[in-house]
């Protein structure tokens, strides 16, 4: 008889352990962290999500994919850590006085990863293909403004229909790919400091050093990006030393790391917000959306989710954009639950109930949703959380637009406010919240056509103000970003956009 009770105790203990460990945590980690000896140094990085189905540079939708392939693809120019554009595949660029003509001189002897030399034809092909196939509507819009693009010896001359002072950022996102190569979706070929070596879905992607790189060659011979669907499994692997590096850690994870890795803090360069489906009730009513804005205490949110790190946002641009960032909008909706209730009453939406769909793999978004629900409850708004898988989020919420509200963060695919703002223009394909405002469209149009930099900055700020005034979404924060790096390596630097530059990382010794 006592045997049975032991068995019972044991089984209940095992069961609860199994529950506590959760999926993924029991996986064995075969790969050891890379060795940092010079010359053949290998870095093992943990990715918190899988790469996109298509790795074609013009088809990438997920920020997590873009930040890895930042090391593989390059445009004629590329951004540096300060947000300036430096020459990459082009060796020099010149902009005419009137801002209409851009002349890029092709760098000599740049080789694609497949060994072919970059020619003018490849550049023209890339611009054509990008304009025709890109999923990034802001890039598409900017490229459609090109009046003429011609080859002139070793120069590429681009003539714009109207001046656009942020056109270089568009150029940087037109990555140069070989014209004769058709397998970009599965085996990317670019000109960047790293070659794409292999990729097995749900397992890992491997980058190797491009020994023919025209610039400073990377110190790392190989970067292995191991894919984790579960944030805890990633963290466990990092803490055990199986990974050399992980980015986008939460403040708690960064704080409880016990293996002596160096943690650096930056911002994620994301616009985290409660995105509202403006096309359907209840959020087609501006007053209801404003009520939600008043019901959120952003300072409290930052304290609760990030111990006060991170930055508050008031519109669709984050602070790294410096001059474009409309700082005065951050507190456009001070915390005022009474006002929220009043607005709801005015709109006839008392007892508002809605569902927040949130991708379950992003702990920070789930946490934010939890806090929001509590704040809304204080204002008499009943929000319910529904956790969905990432793929289901992409399919149903983002592409299918089947949602009332969702917490997510948007990054800038390239360094222009367009990357964040063009999305909300009425007829934009990625305008998944169905935002429609003629004033906003006009402001964006203004931003594109103004030749002077100050005018353009003003127009972008005006656009942000319209988003804020109409409460398009409940803008929340740019999350703090913590990067942990094995002290055997050094050289990590934050970019003002969602990118991780492996070429700057080198062994510490």
């Amino acid at each position, binding site marked *: *008889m006592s045997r*049975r*009770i032991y068995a*019972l*105790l044991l089984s*209940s*203990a095992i*069961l*609860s352990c199994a*529950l*506590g460990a*959760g*999926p993924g*945590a029991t996986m064995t980690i075969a790969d050891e962290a890379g060795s940092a000896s010079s010359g053949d140094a290998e870095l093992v990085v943990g990715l918190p999500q899988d790469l996109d189905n298509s790795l074609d540079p013009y088809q990438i939708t997920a920020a997590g994919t873009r930040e890895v392939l930042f090391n593989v693809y390059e445009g004629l120019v590329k951004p540096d850590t300060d947000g300036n554009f430096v020459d990459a595949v082009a060796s020099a660029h010149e902009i005419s006085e009137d801002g209409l003509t851009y002349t890029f001189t092709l760098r000599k002897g740049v080789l694609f990863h497949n060994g072919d030399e970059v020619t003018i034809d490849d550049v023209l092909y890339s611009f054509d293909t990008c304009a025709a196939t890109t999923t990034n509507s802001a890039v598409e819009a900017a490229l459609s403004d090109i009046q003429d693009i011609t080859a002139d010896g070793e120069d590429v001359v681009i003539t714009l229909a109207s001046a656009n002072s942020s056109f270089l950022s568009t150029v940087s996102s037109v990555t140069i790919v070989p014209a004769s190569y058709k397998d970009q979706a599965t085996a990317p070929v670019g000109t960047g400091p790293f070659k794409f070596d292999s990729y097995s879905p749900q397992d890992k992607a491997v980058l190797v050093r491009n020994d023919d790189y025209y610039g400073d060659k990377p110190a790392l011979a190989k970067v292995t990006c191991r894919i984790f669907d579960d*944030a*805890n499994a990633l*963290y466990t692997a990092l*803490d055990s030393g199986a990974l050399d590096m992980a980015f986008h850690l*939460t403040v*708690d*994870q960064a*704080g*409880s790391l*016990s293996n002596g890795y160096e943690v650096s803090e930056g911002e994620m360069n994301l616009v985290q917000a409660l995105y509202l489906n403006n096309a359907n009730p209840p959020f087609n009513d501006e007053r209801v959306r404003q009520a939600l804005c008043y019901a959120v205490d952003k300072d*409290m949110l930052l*304290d*609760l989710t990030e*111990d006060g790190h991170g930055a508050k946002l008031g519109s669709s641009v984050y602070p790294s954009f410096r001059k474009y960032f409309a700082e005065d909008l951050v507190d456009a909706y001070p915390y005022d639950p009474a006002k929220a209730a009043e607005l709801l009453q005015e709109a006839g939406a008392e007892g508002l109930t809605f569902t927040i769909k949130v991708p*379950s793999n992003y*702990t920070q978004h*789930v*946490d934010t*949703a*939890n*806090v929001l*629900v*509590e704040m809304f*409850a204080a204002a008499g708004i009943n929000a*319910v*959380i*529904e*956790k969905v898988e990432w793929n289901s989020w992409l399919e149903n919420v983002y592409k299918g637009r089947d949602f009332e509200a969702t917490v997510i963060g948007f990054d800038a695919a390239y360094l222009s406010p367009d990357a964040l703002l063009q999305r909300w223009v009425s007829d934009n394909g990625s305008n998944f919240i169905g935002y429609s405002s003629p004033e906003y469209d006009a402001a964006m149009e203004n931003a594109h056509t103004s030749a002077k930099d100050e005018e353009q900055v003003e127009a972008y700020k005006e656009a942000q103000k319209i988003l804020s005034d109409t409460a398009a979404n409940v803008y929340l924060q740019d999350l703090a970003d913590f990067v942990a790096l094995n002290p055997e390596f050094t050289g990590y630097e934050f970019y003002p956009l969602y990118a991780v530059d492996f070429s700057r990382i080198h062994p510490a010794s």
Partner: protein
Amino acid sequence: MKIRKNAYFITGGILSAILTVIIVTGLFWTPYSTTAMNAQEKLQPPSWKHILGTDNFGRDVFSRVMEGAGTSLIIALLVVVIGCVCGIVFGSLCGYFGGAADLILMRICDAITAFPAMLLALVIVSLTGGGAGNIVLALGILFIPSFTRVVRTEYASCRDLNYINAARLMGVSNPRILYAHILPNTLSVLIPTITIGFNNAILAEASLSFLGIGIQPPQASLGSMLKDSQNYLASAPWYALGAGGAIVLMILAVSLLSEGVQQGTCRI
């Protein structure tokens, strides 16, 4: 049914009584709000103020365990009631009358039990959506076959016994024979089945919530608390221990009690 007291019964009884008092209290009152967040008291270790510490939002873990255990308890009870009542009805009819209906129902039971219960529950809940109601329905249906089988076997072995034949000859109605004469004789088998079923139901609910398709936040559930506490295993172990400990204690209490009841009623 007279129960001789024994160590299992006493320990299990006391533990169950304490837990029941705490859980039932939790349905009406908790020391702190289970949802109110407090940035100043994030991840506090256990103290007199918060006896199980606080979580990453500064919520009192003990209050949330009370709420979560209450939810688990109610769900488990409802699941067992659905499974048990349906099981008794199906099992008694099949066992007593036999025939083609018996054959078909038993094959259906075989088919359901052939799949892992968790997998079926996952499929049903992901189709119908989360929420307490759907979990109760999904688990309740899945628990019917095991009860049906146990009850059927008992009825099949009882139906030809002399006292039943005598009752039938005296003209006692079928429902009365089924539920007044035979049912009490199945209790010695039924009670352990119920307690095992109850424990399984608690674990099943916790697992579903752990996987994120059961009880949705911010409502507390032991399973989802365990899931959330994973991120803080190193920095705030009390969070996971509070939720995990509650599950272990609930199951232990009921198992001890059932073991005690069995020992007390059977001759060893």
